[in-house]
C-alpha cells in the first residue's frame, strides 16, 4: 500500500513539473470550447441541438471528457519513454511487488486525468448548472473509473509498442476511433439516425453506443441540463466494463512484457 503511494507521488510530481504547459493546454481547451461552440452553433442543424439549448451546452461536457482522456493518457507516454531509456530497469528493481508497481502506475494516470479535468468540469457547472451532491458524487466516481480505464489502456499500448512513433500512431488511432464514434461532438441520436438511414456503418453505431466516452458525456449532460430525459444508470456499465478490461490488461502487460 505504501509502495503504491510512492509510485503515485513519483508520477504526480512528474506531472506537476509540466504545470505551465498544463495550464496552457487547459486554457486552449477552454478557448476551443468557446470558439467551437460559436461556429458549430451555426453549422449544426438546430433541430439536432434543440434539446440542449445551444451547441456550447452540448459540447462542454464532451470537451471535459476529452480533456480527461488526453491527460489520463499521458502516463502511457512517460512509461513508453522510461522503457526506451531503460529507466524501467530501475523501477523494476525497487523493493515492491510487480502488482503494486502496476496498480500505482494505473492509479497515477487516473488521478492525473481527474486533476486536469477539474477546471473543465467546473466550467460545465458554471455555464450549465450545478449538480446535486449525489449527482456530483456519481459524476466523480464514474469519471475516475473511466480515467483509470484510459490510463490502463495507455499503459497497455505503451509497453507493447517499442518506439515513440508507434506509440503516437497507436494513440492517434485510439483517439480518433473513440472520439469519432461517440457522443462527444454530436448527439448519439444523430449517429443512430444516420445509421438507420444507412449513412453510417452499423458496427460504428454500436461502438458509439457502448463507448464509455458517450456514456460519460451523456451522464454529465443529463445531470446538468434540466430538460433531458432522466439518466439511465445502466449506461455506467459501459464505463465499468471498459475500465475493468483495461486496468487488467495494463497490469498484465506491465508485469509480463517489462520483465523479459
Amino acid at each position, binding site marked *: 500500500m505504501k*509502495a503504491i503511494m*510512492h509510485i503515485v*507521488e*513519483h508520477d504526480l*510530481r*512528474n506531472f506537476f*513539473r*509540466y504545470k505551465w504547459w498544463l495550464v496552457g493546454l487547459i486554457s486552449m481547451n477552454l478557448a476551443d470550447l468557446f470558439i467551437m461552440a460559436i461556429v458549430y452553433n451555426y453549422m449544426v442543424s438546430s433541430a439536432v441541438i434543440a434539446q440542449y439549448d445551444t451547441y456550447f451546452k452540448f459540447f462542454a461536457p464532451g470537451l471535459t471528457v476529452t480533456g480527461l482522456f488526453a491527460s489520463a493518457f499521458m502516463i502511457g507516454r*512517460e512509461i513508453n*519513454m*522510461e522503457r526506451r*531509456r*531503460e*529507466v524501467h*530497469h*530501475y523501477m*523494476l*528493481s*525497487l*523493493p*515492491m*511487488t510487480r502488482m503494486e508497481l502496476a496498480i500505482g502506475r494505473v492509479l497515477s494516470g487516473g488521478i492525473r486525468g481527474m486533476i486536469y479535468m477539474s477546471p473543465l468540469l467546473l466550467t460545465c457547472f458554471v455555464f450549465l448548472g450545478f449538480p446535486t451532491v449525489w449527482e456530483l458524487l456519481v459524476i466523480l466516481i464514474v469519471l475516475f473509473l473511466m480515467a483509470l480505464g484510459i490510463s490502463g489502456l495507455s499503459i497497455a499500448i505503451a509497453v507493447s509498442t517499442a518506439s515513440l512513433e508507434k506509440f503516437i500512431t497507436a494513440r492517434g488511432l485510439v483517439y480518433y476511433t473513440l472520439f469519432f464514434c461517440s457522443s462527444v461532438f454530436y448527439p448519439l441520436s444523430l449517429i443512430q439516425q444516420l445509421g438507420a438511414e444507412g449513412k453510417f456503418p452499423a458496427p460504428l453505431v454500436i461502438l458509439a453506443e457502448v463507448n464509455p466516452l458517450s456514456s460519460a458525456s451523456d451522464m454529465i449532460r443529463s445531470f446538468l441540463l434540466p430538460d433531458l430525459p432522466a439518466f439511465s444508470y445502466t449506461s455506467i456499465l459501459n464505463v465499468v466494463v471498459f475500465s475493468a478490461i483495461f486496468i487488467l490488461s495494463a497490469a498484465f502487460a506491465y508485469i509480463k512484457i517489462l*520483465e*523479459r
Partner: protein
Amino acid sequence: MPSIIQISNLTKKFGNIVAVDHLDLEVEDGEILGLLGPNGAGKTTTILMLATVIRPTEGTATVGGFDIRKNPEKVRELFGIVFQEPKMLWVSTPWDIVNWHAKVCGLSTEERKRRVKEVLESLDMWEHRRKNVHALSGGMRKRVELAKVLVQRPKIAIVDEPTAQIDVVGKHRVWNMLRRLRDEGSTLILATNELYEADELSDRVAIMHRGKLLVCDTPKTLKDSIVGGDIVEIQLENDASAKIVEELKNFKEVVNILQVKPCILRLYLNKVEEVVPKIMNTLVKKNVPVTSIHMSEPSLDDVFAHYTGLTIEEAQKSGE
C-alpha cells in the same frame, strides 16, 4: 566466510546471443567482489538477473537465502543498484531522485533528510540538487546514480561501472565511500572493466569473458598464479618482426610474449636477472635498437591477459 549470494548455472540468452553462459559463482558476506570483464562479457546482464529485473533463461541464484525466481520480492529488499547508465527521467532533479529513492527504501524522514544532504554534499552535488537532470553533465548524472545507493546503504550494493565518466579526484572519493559502505556491513558487487579499480577495491575478483566465469580469487593469488612471475616490457625503436618474437620465445626462461603494440613487447619470464642481459645481447646482435626497458610485477592486466588470452586493447575491440 558464509556466502550471501550463490549463483548456479545462471544463463541468459538474447535470441542467439548467450550473454551469460552457465555461470556459477558465490559472493561472500561483507566482501567487495570485483566482476571484471571486457565489453559484452555479460557483467550487466548477470547483475540485472540477480536484481530480478530480467528473467534468467536457465539456472538461478539465491540471495540472502531467497531464490531469485521464487522470492523476487524478498530479494529486491536486499539490493541497491547503481546502474551503468543512470536511470532517471530528465525532467527530474537530483534531490527529488535521491530523496524519493530513500523514501521507497524505507528510510525515516529524519534520517533521509540528513543522509541525502550528507551524501550529496560529499559527492559535490548539493549545489546542483535543484537542477534538471538534462542540465547535468554525464559525470554528475553518475554521481546522482551513486548517491541513491550510498544513501540507501543496502545489505547488498551492486555498482556497475561506478566511476565511469567520473573525474580522477571524484574517483578516489567514490572508492573511499564504497569501502566505507563495505566496512559498515554491506556486501558489494563491483562490475568494472577498469583493472586498476578492481585491484584497488576488490577483496576478490571474478573474471568473466563471453558470458563465462574464467577465474575467481583474491587479486594477490591471481597475480601470484601467473607463470613467469617477472615481467619485462621492451620498447623497440621500430616495429618488432615475427622473427624477432620467435627468437625471444626460444629462451627457455621466457614463458609468454604479448605484443602490446607493434613496437612494445611484454615478456613473462623467470630468472629475470640472468635472462635480460642475454636478451639484450641477442637484440644488439640482430641489430634491433631498443628505446627502453622496464621491469614490473604482474598486475591484474596480466592476470586478465593470461586468462582471456587477450590484451586489454584486443579484448575491448572484440567486445564492441
